[in-house]
């Protein structure tokens, strides 16, 4: 039996997204038929890496929750779309790195979670 997983796909991803550009894509849950899904969260977020404590901020956040009546059908791919902000841009410094990603988190039964990320770069250059 396959392990449950989340697949994220971005629509025609460029090497670097530009501020103000639209980012869209879809995600799909695999092999979770026997495991009821309580909720799914989709975030477009940035976070820091490096020497310091992690700073995390979400640009967009969507949550679909069975308790709120937003039934999550694991077999159907779900789409997402957002317009990217002007800052902060992706950065690879000496002690600070700034990363962008689409993160999908699925909450399964008995407190189990599935997480998947699709990193992308936000930059002024093409």
């Amino acid at each position, binding site marked *: 039996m396959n392990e449950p997983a989340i697949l994220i796909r971005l629509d025609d991803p460029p090497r670097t997204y530009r501020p103000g550009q639209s980012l869209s894509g879809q995600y799909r849950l695999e092999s979770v038929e026997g495991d009821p899904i309580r909720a799914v969260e989709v*975030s477009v977020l940035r976070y820091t890496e490096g020497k*310091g*404590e992690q700073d995390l901020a*979400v640009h967009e956040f969507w949550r679909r929750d069975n308790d709120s009546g937003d039934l999550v059908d694991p077999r159907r791919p779900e789409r997402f779309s957002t317009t990217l902000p002007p*800052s902060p*841009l992706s950065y690879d410094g000496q002690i600070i790195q700034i990363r962008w990603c689409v993160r999908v988190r699925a909450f399964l039964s*008995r407190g*189990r979670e*599935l997480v998947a990320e699709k990193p992308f770069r936000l930059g002024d250059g093409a």
Partner: protein
Amino acid sequence: MARNFRYFEKKRGHRRTGSRTLGSLGEAIFFALLLVLGCAGIVAGFVWLVIPEWRVHHGFVETTCLVLQKKLGEKEGDGGTLYRPEIQIEYEVHGIQHYRSTYDINYDGARAYSSDRDAAAAALEPFEKGRAYPCWYDPSQPDVAVVVRGYQGWLWLVFLVPGSFVAIGAGGLLYTLLRWGKSAERRAAMVQRAQPIELFDIDRPGETRLPNIPDLSDITSSPGTKLAYRLPLSHSPGWTLLGLAAACLLWNGSVSYFIVSAVRAYLAGQPDWLLTLFILPFLAIGIALVVCFVRQLVVATAVGPTLVEISDHPLLPGGEYRLLVSQSGRLNMRSLEVWLACREEATYRQGTNARTETRQVRRLPVFRREALAILPGEPFQAECSVCVPAGAMHSFRADHNEIDWSLVVRGEVVNRQAFERAFPVIVHPLSGASTPGSGGP
């Protein structure tokens, strides 16, 4: 892969973070305990302190009593003799005579006694033996009666401690429960939505909001004399001087007490070598503080102010800007140089300490002049250009990580300590403005 409960989360560098679930559970238990303790304290305070006094006012029946005797009661406490006023009264309830020694509702408790003899004696003053006074008795226990009733205001202070326990416990528990089982992204979204809307924080037409980029207003609030803006110093030398002066006074004031003792011992012909050896390192630190203070004072006063003006702000990658550097004072300088610096600053926890690491990641020379003499009233002024490299990272500020840009002026003065002054600037991403700066005021 699906994850079950973990005792430890992922390893970050050489640091392993603890389980978030365990941490939240620990926090919840801690705050719940505080809340329970606080509530128990408040209930106990009400039961033992407030309700008896309230009952005297609202449940006791008024009647008249005859004072048979009055005296100052005494007992031995841990810190000496304790006193309380004692009034012996006779009163009648439903045809039955009652005799009792009393004062107020706390008469039989430990709180009736105090070490203040005068206060206890003064409490007896209003009563005279053989005279009738109003008194109040408990209808369910007619043997219990008081001749004084009233609320003791200070009792409410007792509730400060359990009250603060309740406030901290309830607040912490609510905060923990609100975060419970929520992902980092959901918590971040909740915090961002809950950010207070700043007063006067009005979106200006045509101005783009730039997340994580510091505010410009501190830098563009001061117009320049020749160019558009006069840049502020990163920190005022006045505060450094004030801090050093306070440190000098505190340290040397404390050390001087021991120095005086040691000198007196010498003068009395009984030198205390142990004390002398003990104070020597402290004296050395005190002298170092004074030297440091004097140096800073010289830099702040003799060097004179450094002014930097810029033709446009914020800066943009690829932009070129005119700069005016002005240095006053009476100085014979080996060199005066200016550079554009980019610095990364990261704050992290190590145990219970918060540590900050900074690293200069770019140092772009802007201007350098060697061997110059500055006379009082004739400040040295130079115009130059500063270029922000294309592709340079913009300024960035988050809770624990920062990327700062600044123009740094460094002067090497003959026979004096070199000085360095930083003037912060903000670099925006290209997308934050329509065109790179052209440099016109």
